[in-house]
């Protein structure tokens, strides 16, 4: 009979309860794991333990408990030792330990206590996740966790109430029923959980508070190939398009364009290695408070407007200690408050080639403002400069001995005997017009420059710039290879995103009294990335969502709050102004508002009517108007029933009190049953003292029985 009654599709109550608990644990773990700090080992262990616990947990339950104890205690001591000796972060160690505890609980799921402990451990993991990262992914894991945890709590309570109330035999049918954990119930619970979160968010936005960014730790993203101090051109291959965002830039004045055609300069690589480029010298120079002075002719460019101010967020893991600047001469660099509380304030350094660096490198995301003079010296200004170069430029004049003679010949053919500026322009024009651009260069070649110029006649930006630098050097003009990014795309977040795939390389040519001036031989249409794929757009959208999350949640502080309130107030003012008809009244708006109000009113009215009608519908409820003695009797029996259940008696809803008393073989239970029956069904008085005395007697006998 039961089978037919409870047939149907969907989850049984037991399954739903099991998976809700498991999912809550998984999402709590994800909240922890998205920080990327747990390490791949622990992630694998968790996944394996999760699957193993699902498959073998019930079988090994209660067996080899000493093994678990050894494991947990051992892990504890190992972590403590790591904290002391290797300086492992205490918070991270605690998180790892929480993961292990959670794994332990995933293998022990049988009793109500087990389930509650699993939920507790999940909560612990979630807290650990909050300490490890406050990124948007954590936010999503948090949302999913709250929904699953709500399910888990409700269903666990339901399951064990049923088991306690009906005994193992009586509850089997209900626990296997597929009509309890219906989509409606789960959906309702999820809505409830989300509503709670929305309420929490409202409080969060409304009340003054300090930012939770202060609790956040530095996130260390995996380093990406980007701005290393060397470039190898021989190892050819396909240059991948990487849509990850490297820089987030806000420009003042705002150019107001969808895409920026801008060079983002990172560093100069001056020494030709025969296969590519490397940095000159040991690298980072001495700490410097002030930027190198601009060349004297710089002032002759003649500024026509204010300098360009770029507010830049450099995503951790890409910049490799280099301060990336927009094109132009940097006038000032100001580091902002670190985005991570643990990160120390970085300081500026200037390298041998005048490149800007910061230290320490490991500060997570870097936020700084660069002011540049983005005026370019005119071509006329570059011409007729003296050709006597200072000795420190020697490195930029070095021509490798084994350079293919055809390179020098081509350089002479293009710019021999010309003014250096004209020669540079001629070579730039030649390269960008006569040679093709490609990112796909399979195979390995011995001399990449000769291969590029005379064999394939195709290449990527590194080849263009390298060829130009070497050709200029054969003509005795100092030049160097510069790496950085090119481009910038406006995102939904209102900032320009420069992506890893926008990595670019160009040339700087030295002119006395002007300094290094930028030339870019790569065809203009091929610079930077051509990221237009769906995936690239998704990545951009994700990045802008992340920025909003950071702005409105992580770094949402008193100032932002005041601004938000002001904006809401302004919006309300505007709405009121429009509704009152003062500002070109929007009749459609008014109609819509009236309709919404009418609908809400009708809904409320319907709800109220329903509430009023319900009691009259419930005939049974009306019948249950019990007298005080009857109510006391009912309470007495319910309490006694709970005690008997706890004592291990198998009671179902079809068990009468007298049957329960017979089964318990307790005189006190019989007395309770008689008193209950007399008061409940016979209308006999049952003073509360008597009821209490009966319960006490039952307790005493139960203790004696145990």
């Amino acid at each position: 009979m039961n089978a037919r009654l409870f047939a149907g599709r969907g989850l049984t109550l037991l399954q739903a309860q099991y998976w809700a608990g498991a999912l809550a644990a998984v999402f709590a773990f994800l909240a922890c794991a998205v920080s990327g700090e747990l390490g791949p080992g622990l992630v694998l262990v968790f996944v394996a333990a999760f699957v193993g616990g699902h498959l073998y947990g019930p079988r090994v339950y209660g067996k080899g408990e000493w093994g678990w104890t050894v494991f947990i205690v051992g892990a504890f001591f190992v972590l403590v030792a790591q904290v002391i000796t290797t300086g492992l972060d205490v918070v991270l160690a605690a998180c790892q330990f929480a993961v292990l505890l959670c794994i332990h609980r995933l293998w022990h799921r049988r009793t109500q206590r087990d389930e509650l402990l699993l939920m507790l451990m999940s909560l612990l993991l979630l807290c650990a996740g909050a300490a490890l990262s406050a990124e948007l992914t954590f936010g999503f894991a948090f949302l999913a966790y709250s929904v699953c945890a709500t399910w888990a709590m409700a269903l666990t309570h339901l399951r064990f109430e049923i088991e306690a109330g009906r005994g193992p035999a009586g509850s089997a049918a209900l626990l296997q029923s597929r009509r309890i954990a219906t989509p409606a119930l789960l959906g309702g619970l999820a809505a409830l959980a989300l509503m709670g979160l929305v309420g929490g968010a409202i409080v969060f936005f409304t009340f003054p508070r300090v930012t939770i960014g202060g609790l956040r730790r530095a996130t260390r993203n995996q380093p990406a190939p980007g701005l290393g101090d060397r470039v190898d051109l021989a190892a050819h291959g396909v240059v991948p398009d990487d849509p990850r965002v490297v820089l987030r830039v806000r420009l003042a004045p705002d150019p107001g364009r969808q895409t920026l055609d801008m060079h983002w300069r990172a560093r100069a690589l001056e020494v030709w290695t025969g296969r590519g480029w490397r940095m000159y010298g040991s690298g980072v120079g001495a700490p410097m408070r002030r930027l190198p002075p601009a060349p004297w002719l710089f002032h002759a460019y003649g500024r026509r407007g204010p300098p360009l101010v770029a507010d830049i967020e450099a995503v951790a893991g890409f910049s490799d200690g280099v301060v990336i600047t927009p094109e132009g001469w940097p006038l000032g660099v100001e580091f902002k408050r670190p985005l991570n509380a643990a990160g120390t304030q970085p300081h500026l350094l200037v390298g041998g080639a005048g490149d800007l660096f910061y230290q320490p490198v490991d500060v997570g995301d870097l936020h700084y403002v660069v002011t540049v003079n983005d005026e370019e010296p005119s071509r006329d200004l570059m011409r007729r400069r003296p050709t006597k170069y200072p000795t420190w430029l020697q490195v930029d004049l070095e021509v490798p001995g084994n350079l293919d003679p055809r390179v020098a010949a081509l350089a002479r053919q293009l710019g021999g005997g010309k003014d250096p500026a004209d020669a540079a322009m001629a070579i730039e024009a030649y390269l960008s017009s006569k040679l093709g651009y490609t990112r796909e260069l399979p195979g390995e070649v011995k001399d990449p420059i000769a291969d590029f110029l005379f064999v394939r006649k195709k290449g990527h930006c590194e080849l263009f710039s390298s060829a130009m630098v070497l050709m200029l050097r054969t003509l005795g003009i100092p030049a160097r290879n510069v790496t950085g990014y090119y481009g910038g795309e406006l995102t939904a977040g209102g900032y320009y995103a420069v992506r890893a795939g926008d990595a670019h390389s160009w040339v700087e040519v030295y002119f006395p009294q002007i300094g290094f001036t930028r030339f870019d031989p790569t065809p203009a249409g091929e610079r930077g990335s051509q990221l237009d794929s769906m995936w690239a757009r998704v990545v951009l959208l994700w990045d802008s969502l992340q920025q909003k999350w950071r702005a409105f949640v992580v770094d949402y502080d008193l100032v932002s709050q005041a601004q938000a309130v002001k904006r809401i107030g302004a919006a309300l003012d505007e709405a009121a102004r429009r509704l009152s008809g003062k500002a070109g009244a929007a009749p459609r708006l008014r109609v819509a508002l009236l309709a919404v109000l009418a609908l809400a009113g009708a809904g409320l009215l319907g709800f109220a009517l329903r509430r009023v009608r319900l009691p009259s519908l419930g005939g049974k409820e009306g019948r249950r108007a019990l007298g005080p003695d009857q109510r006391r009797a009912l309470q007495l029996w319910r309490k006694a029933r709970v005690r008997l259940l706890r004592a291990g008696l198998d009671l179902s809803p079809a068990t009468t009190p007298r049957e329960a008393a017979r089964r318990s073989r307790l005189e006190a239970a019989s007395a309770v049953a008689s008193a209950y029956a007399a008061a409940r069904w016979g209308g006999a008085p049952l003073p509360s003292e008597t009821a209490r005395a009966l319960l006490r007697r039952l307790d005493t006998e139960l203790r004696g029985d145990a």
Partner: protein
Amino acid sequence: MTPDDGAGSAAKVTPLGAPLSPEEARKVASSLQANIGRALRGKQEIVELALAALAASGHLLLEDVPGVGKTTLAQALARSLDLSFARVQFTSDLLPGDITGVSIYDQNRGTFVFKPGPLFANLVLADEINRTTPRTQSCLLEAMAEGQVSVDGVARPLPGPFMVLATQNPHEHAGTYPLPESQLDRFLLRLSIGYPGPEVERDLLLGGGTHEELTHLRPVASASDVRRLQAAVAGVRVAPEIADYVLAIAAATRSTPLVSLGASPRGAIALLNVARARALLRGRGYVEPDDVKDLCVPVLAHRITLAGRGPGGGEIERLAAERVVRDLVEQVPVPE
């Protein structure tokens, strides 16, 4: 409903015909049980149920093998209550007139005089009721239902407390006429006395049977006590939740696929009536769920037809039906 006249010599104080109070009912019941128990030993529950049937003005169907004390129960009941007792052995050639009585021409007076048959006793033991023809069976059942018999167009009321204890042997099939459902429904309870316990049987073996005891039984209650007991049953209080419980049980027998014909409304009424009677016998003026739950099997098991089986079958069917009812009751939540 319950005149509060204390315990003591309540029977004397209470005016004749007034319903017994629960306490009086309990006293009567316990003295009757003790008395009958001397003859039918080790069968207290059966005796209580028989008394409950009597109090609820119902009739008993005893389904059992011969020689376990059916007759002893009937006789002991009759003797303890100072009631008249008649026993009819139902055979295939028994005619309705044989039990109702016949009108005989009285030559002295020149008129037909009615000679009452064995039915005109307070307690009638209808032995092996399934061996007689349906015609005689229905005659008996009419008497049970109406409390009167019609002979020669004249309806003659049967004496005050009237109770039939019908027996049938579940192991006999050849030459029997199983009772149809509608007639089984008329029996308030179906009981099976069952073999006595080993101790009791040993005593019986050595003590020379029950005949001795039976002859020494003295009446402990009168016919009027029985009538007052029967009158008191209607006054036993039933909470609406209890009535709902009874209905839920009846509904359960109707909705389960194991039963092709569930309990009739008469069955539900019978269940509540016997529950009232038993509550009264136990000295209570109210019915509690236990009264209903305990009585479900004897009241309902013979009123249902199991799916795929005919009515009134043998021992196996009886046990199966009782089992089904017991299981069903264990699934109906008890009112709190």
